[in-house]
């Protein structure tokens, strides 16, 4: 695209800063406005992100991939029957459908220590790209530490709080939910993890949860995310709660490595 080969465009003499961030910096300007190219690039990214919200997740494919890793899963549906309802009725996305409850009741409920839930949320691409690789690290770790787990629950049109009902059903202390975050222009495939200790359906609130967000190619790596989650699990087992009063105090190795790179202060 060479839409801006015009003398009106003022380039920013700090374009080498783009090496440090995926943010849209040093865009230049015409007068004090955005040049045509940057303007159209934003429109393009918006169109892609809008589409990402509406592409459905391949649940069967995800179940197969987990199966190949040696893990059973079950696919459940929330009470939001389609994406349009899901977007406008978060209350329904927090509740299990009648058929999902039947499905849980049919499988003999063995009491478990932890439940792992995967929900499509607002970005199927996030789950498509990151759920299986992250679970391939998390699940062996939980098992090695003696946690009893029911099959991984894959939830269609689920919100974060739908994990509470599942944890309660299995009488599990730990509720871990992986969910597709709202797609951003630069990261349409960002995954979040919410962790709740002793989750209770209709009672647990956001203040009872800890969140690890921005797991994607340019964001938090799987190893870092796992480290944070394990810290939260261990700390909550000692304290007896999760949420705002439980702080993630892990040392951030990514930050340490990048510290000397701060050109503004060196």
């Amino acid at each position, binding site marked *: 695209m060479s839409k801006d080969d015009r003398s009106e465009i*003022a380039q*920013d*003499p*700090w374009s*080498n*800063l783009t*090496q*440090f*961030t*995926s*943010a*849209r*910096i040093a*865009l230049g*300007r015409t007068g*004090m*406005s*955005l040049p045509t190219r*940057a303007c159209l690039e*934003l*429109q393009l*990214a*918006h169109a892609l992100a809008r589409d990402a*919200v509406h592409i459905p997740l391949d649940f069967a494919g995800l179940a197969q991939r987990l199966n190949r890793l040696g893990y059973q899963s079950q696919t459940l549906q929330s009470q939001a029957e389609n994406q349009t309802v899901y*977007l*406008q*009725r*978060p209350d329904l996305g927090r509740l299990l459908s009648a058929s999902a409850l039947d499905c849980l009741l049919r499988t003999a409920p063995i009491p478990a220590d932890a439940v792992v839930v995967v929900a499509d949320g*607002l970005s199927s691409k996030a789950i498509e790209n990151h759920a299986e690789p992250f679970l391939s690290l998390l699940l062996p770790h939980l098992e090695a530490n003696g946690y009893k787990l029911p099959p991984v629950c894959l939830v269609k049109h689920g919100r974060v709080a739908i994990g509470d009902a599942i944890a309660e059903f299995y009488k599990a202390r730990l509720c871990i939910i992986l969910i597709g975050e*709202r797609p*951003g*222009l*630069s*990261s349409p495939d*960002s995954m979040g993890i919410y962790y709740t200790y002793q989750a209770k359906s209709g009672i647990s*609130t*956001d*203040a009872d949860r800890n*969140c690890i967000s921005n797991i*994607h190619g*340019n*964001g*938090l790596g799987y190893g870092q995310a796992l480290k*944070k989650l394990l810290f939260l699990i261990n700390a909550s087992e000692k304290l007896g709660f999760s949420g*705002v*009063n439980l*702080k*993630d*105090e892990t040392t*951030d190795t*990514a*930050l340490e490595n*990048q*510290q000397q*790179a*701060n*050109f*503004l*202060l*060196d």
Partner: protein
Amino acid sequence: MYKTHLGHQSYDFKTLRNLMAKASPPRSGDYLAGVAAGNNLERVAAQWVLADVPLKQFLNEALVPYELDEVTRLIIDGHDSGAFETISHLTVGDFRNWLLSEHATAETLTAIVPGLMPEMVAAVSKIMRIQDLILAAKKCRVITRFRGTIGLENRLSTRLQPNHPTDNPAGVAASLLDGLLYGCGDAVIGINPASDNLEATLRLLHMLDDVIERYQIPTQSCVLAHVTMTLKAIGQGAPVDLVFQSIAGTQKANDSFGINLNLLNEAHHAALDLKRGTLGGNCMYFETGQGSALSANAHEGLDQQTCEVRAYAVARKFKPLLVNTVVGFIGPEYLYDGKQIIRAGLEDHFCGKLLGLPMGCDVCYTNHAEADQDDMDMLLTAFAAAGGTFIMGVPGADDVMLNYQSTSFHDALYVRQVLGLRPAPEFEQWLQQHHIFNADNQLLQQPEAPALFKASLQKLIGIR
């Protein structure tokens, strides 16, 4: 009590709470909560009835019971009947007329602030059109100070928001410098941390403090962590300028945020004790947004706009430097499309200003809402015309950490240009002194970065 006839249809609204909800202009969150009017006629009927309700009635009929809710107690106990006197004889409809009349001036509006209950303000906004919301808000003057003066006439400030998906210091610094060189950051340099982590919070706080100190920028910093995290950071001696917290309009919703008035009070005093403001002591930064109470299932049967305005009662108790309604952030289940977002942003600004708050607006939307850049341009322009205190400045409007679109550095320049608005005076002087802006507050055309930052940038040459 709240009854009327329209044509052959009679309408009977059982309670003031019910009447307020039905009179609210349409928005998806009120449908979700099941409190909205069933159709247009019922909405207009409610607005007719609401217009005849005396303002005094709000003192007699609490929308959320006094015994159950500390926000209600804060509102009722803090009500100043002396300040209310000027308008105590008015109905909601009269109050709209008064606000638009020549009797309402910056002085008279400031004088009635302690006599206004949030519910009275929410009520009148429901029968005001967008031009009314703009005109009345424009008359209000709310000035706050920390290291700069925010809210003077014909000034529009910006929060520089250099977020990064992993809080990488160089990544944050790159966006920060880009913003400064585009003239942004006089309201605050405020980072939303990606992780809820004490170490990361401390690192960001120290970094922002070092940048402000080294380059002598007349602004203040904020890391938008939970108030309990900021208290921990203060405990460890961190350089905290502004304490941030998201707040809501019911006790239950605040519970779900893990806060209450005592905790906010503790944080407010901790920040005051640091005495870091050079021009003034406004040291709190609050964020709000319609729908937050409902999303925590804590709306107490109220419509979302009334909930929102009650949050401003919480805010005003702590004399904040900045209050920001993050209007389109919460998603289409609360504000469905551009039209709903635009009206909500202007309502929030009007209501906050009338209650004496330095109201900014995060003019924004998410990718699952029915909105686009055109809608944001409409809200941005109308907000600035209404005398809005500050907006966000995000590189290219795309927040790469929070995953939504806000206003860009270019957007701020656009709206200042169109409406003749200037940055805060201290920051304006800094921009001109360092040849970022010329004397007319336009970006200077130059082949090299301003001298102040040349050394930092030169080090990077060849490091691609």
